[in-house]
């Protein structure tokens, strides 16, 4: 391979190491679940075997990475071709934060309010949209999803402690 990169990508190595740690922990738990009993495989056997498989190939991949035979970037990141400029860490953190916080807001606030807050953060803060389109998209998205799911499909969307929605 002539186009092999000399240095392994740090993210690559970190990911493979995390996977190794994960499967090591899983393998250890599997031992506790019991591997064999009464002449039959126990609950721990299958997880132990697949952890071993994952670990084996993770080590191989790690070796390949250090040997400079890591895969090309574009293959797994189809978007990168369409994008340019530096990483927008703030924007991606906002997006990720919204996705992770949303359900926790939904329980006390209900679907309508929590979705409105989430959309507000994404549209106004992450995408920096002007007030008017923000409001329009927000009302349309919340209204439409509420109508379709709550009214049409009878999904009992959470109403929250305030009982809105």
């Amino acid at each position, binding site marked *: 391979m002539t186009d092999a990169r000399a240095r392994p990508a740090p993210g690559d190595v970190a990911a493979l190491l995390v996977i190794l740690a994960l499967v090591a922990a899983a393998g250890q738990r599997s031992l506790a679940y019991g591997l064999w009993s009464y002449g039959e495989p126990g609950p721990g056997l299958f997880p132990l075997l697949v952890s071993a498989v994952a670990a084996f190939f993770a080590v191989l*991949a790690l070796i390949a990475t250090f040997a400079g035979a890591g895969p090309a970037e574009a293959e797994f*990141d189809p978007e990168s*071709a369409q994008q*340019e400029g*530096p*990483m927008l860490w703030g924007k991606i953190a906002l997006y990720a934060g919204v996705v992770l916080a949303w359900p926790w807001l939904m329980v006390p606030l209900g679907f309508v309010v929590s979705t409105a807050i989430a959309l507000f953060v994404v549209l106004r803060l992450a995408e920096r949209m002007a007030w008017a*389109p923000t409001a329009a998209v927000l009302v349309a998205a919340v209204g439409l*999803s509420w109508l379709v799911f709550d009214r049409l499909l*009878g999904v009992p969307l959470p109403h929250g402690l305030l009982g809105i929605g």
Partner: protein
Amino acid sequence: MDLLGGLAQGFAVALGPSALLHCMIGVVIGTAIGVLPGLGPTATISLLLPITYRLDPVSSVIMLSGIYYGAMYGSSITAILVRIPGEAASIVTCIDGYEMARRGRAGPALGMSAFGSFIAGIVATIGIALFGPMLSGVAIRFGPAEYTALVALGLILVTHVSGGSVTRSLVMVGLGLLASTVGLDPIVGSERFTMGALFLQDGLDIAIMAMGLFGVAEVLAMAERSLKPSELLAQPRRTRDLLPTRADWRASAAPIGRGSLLGFALGLLPGGGALIASFASYVMEKRLSRTPERFGTGAIEGVAGPESANNAAAQASFVPLLSLGIPSNVVMGVLMGALMIHGITPGPMLLQSQPALFWGVIVSMFVGNLMLIVLNVPLLPLFVALLRIPQRILSPLILVFCVVGAYSLNNSTTDIVTMGVFGVLGWLMRKARLDPAPFLLAFVLGGLFERSFRQSLLIGGGSPMIFLQKPISAALLAAAALLLVLPLVRWGVRRLRPAPTGKAS
């Protein structure tokens, strides 16, 4: 038994005004709901089931199967347009379908998916009419040992789906199998890896993980840098330009034919048949192609084959349900419930006692697929227009629908948490160049694999000889071994003999 007579009776039933109407309603609302990101056939049919409780049995089953087909097509639409698979079988459609959409060819991808499904529907209907109830025996020949072997074969095929390095694919396969063991042990019922969390007792949900790993991760990836204005997707506007071209048809004809036959055969088996059919078709086309490197970069064969296989399998899966009372998947389970509420128990007596129902349903699938084309081809410009929504509006909308979709599966906010976590994980995987597709496929097969493997050992008294004593399982295992060994042999040969010309890949 007069099979052609049965088919004629089926047409009489399925072309009646009431059946046509219910088929149409089913297909329309099935597509409309299935096209929402995250809502695949299983979710759609569970949501819409209560509507059909009031109908007569034939209409209700015809409408439910219409919903099933509509939702299947709807989930192909989301797979192609926004890379969110609505069901496990459309994970494969995401690979090349989405790449086609990114290259301004969303129209042909959507069109070929509909035409391929329709042709597969014809093949499957003819197959059922010719061999019909004879085929029901196939399902019972498959016991735990045979399933173990089939899934082992499927797992080896999974590693060929991904375009990247096989080693990395295998890491993801291992992790997918590991993820499938979360929850209650399938044999003794003890908890594994639940960390005391109740919701993990049922294990992780494929739909929730798919929405996270594909849908949410895609949104995050879109947000990470600014879009190049010049490379915004340019999709043609006229319907004529959105239909598959003559070259597309030439490329897709054989994959559709092979996919239909493969899907029909595997769809007769309950369990993972339909899923294995979809990616087996993909791997087969990639292997048979003279230009395998095009796969993963928007090859239309990679959409046509799996979509046909998927649809033929879905149709074939009605055979074990109607003739043996075996629901092959969750959707069939729901349909079985719908029949039972009308006092009709699917089983060996159904064909004798309710021939109109059996043949009417079979023929109505064919009618339903025709309706899908008639309805959806004029709608192609509309679906493609969705891609013209600016990314900064589309991304938040996808998030909203993923969140509501995840919630509606079990009416639980915990599922949204899980989806969010897998969304972030999916983005990280992408950064680490690890492919989520083999992970998800292995996850689905893992449950079936462990269960049938351990069932086999129970039946065989703890001895693995059971896999070799049964002819079907022995044959399948031999095929799996061959698939595993062949690339190694080829690699070895290539090593020994330096490639004469060109560069070694």
